């Protein structure tokens, strides 16, 4: 059970990393500031989870959770910004890539920050479940 959680989390982190690189390097969408912070939080998880899987380390969730939980915060903030829940008019417009523009939108609601939020929540959930079941 535990191993499954680790593997699935690892695949989610991998997908997030490769997906974000696809959008920036292939589709040419430059990451905004908030995207960079989310990348900083999720890219390392690919390595951390890989090592945890290989070492069969039950303590891996402790290394992953601080990053994934903060990641939920950043992704949630950007998602709410894009939805207009956090009022854009309160925030100055900065020179550079906009964190608010929906560069990509599938089915009317799936945007990049949304995907990021789902990834962080999924990883956090699986790490918590992994801790719970390993006791």
């Amino acid at each position, binding site marked *: 059970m535990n191993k499954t959680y680790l593997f699935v989390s690892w695949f989610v982190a991998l997908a997030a990393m490769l997906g974000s690189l696809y959008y920036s390097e292939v589709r040419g969408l430059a990451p905004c500031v908030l995207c960079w912070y989310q990348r900083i939080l999720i890219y390392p998880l690919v390595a951390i989870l890989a090592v945890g899987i290989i070492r069969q380390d039950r303590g891996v969730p402790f290394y992953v959770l601080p990053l994934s939980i903060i990641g939920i915060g950043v992704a949630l903030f950007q998602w709410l910004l894009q939805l207009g829940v956090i009022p*854009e008019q309160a925030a*100055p*417009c*900065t*020179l*550079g890539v*906009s964190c608010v*523009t929906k560069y990509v939108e599938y089915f009317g609601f799936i945007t990049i920050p949304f995907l990021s939020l789902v990834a962080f929540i999924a990883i956090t959930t699986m790490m918590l479940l992994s801790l719970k079941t390993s006791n």
Partner: protein
Amino acid sequence: MSKETKIVLGVCLVIVAALVLLIVNYSGTSTKIEPGSAMYERLERANSHRTGQPGAKVTLVEFADFQCPACAYVAPITEQVVAAYKDNPDFSFVFRHFPLPQHQNAIAAAAAAEAAGQQGKFWEMYHEIFANQTEWESSANAAELFAGYAQGLSLGVDQFKADSQSDKYDDFITNDAKDGIALGVNSTPTFFLNGEPIVGVQTFEEFKAMIDAKLK
């Protein structure tokens, strides 16, 4: 709680507190531009749009992008400020263009304001463009909408269209933006009150307090 945990948590707490303090108090502000310096000359140019007199005792300069929601939000506030001090010869408000590259209609909006200014109604068009921002900001037909506002202001529409859709104001707009960049502007709206940078939306009360303090 182990000693290591206490140390780590303690350090993290201090760092977070310091970051919050720094960001809340200092983000976006560059240092004051000193009067008399070469940089100060860039705050307002002889042909900049202003209320009141050049070289007034208290000058509020705004670098703004017509397509920026925060600028539209603060526009009624700056209009309120201008109205409050309109009979005071010691106060002047100066508007400088700072169109951002991610805003597709920003330069067209700036040109529309300039074209209206050519016919003597810059500030009226400034009002219309900001007040109706949600209408034109993502429209592929912004030029027609601006022409509509011009008509509403009783401007010569043919002349307005010819002027606003030409490139005659490009240099003026670009030079405003260049001055802004040189002054350290990297977001809109950015205000300068006698050279002191103020980034982002302020309330009328906040402006009034700062202006009154300088008028003394």
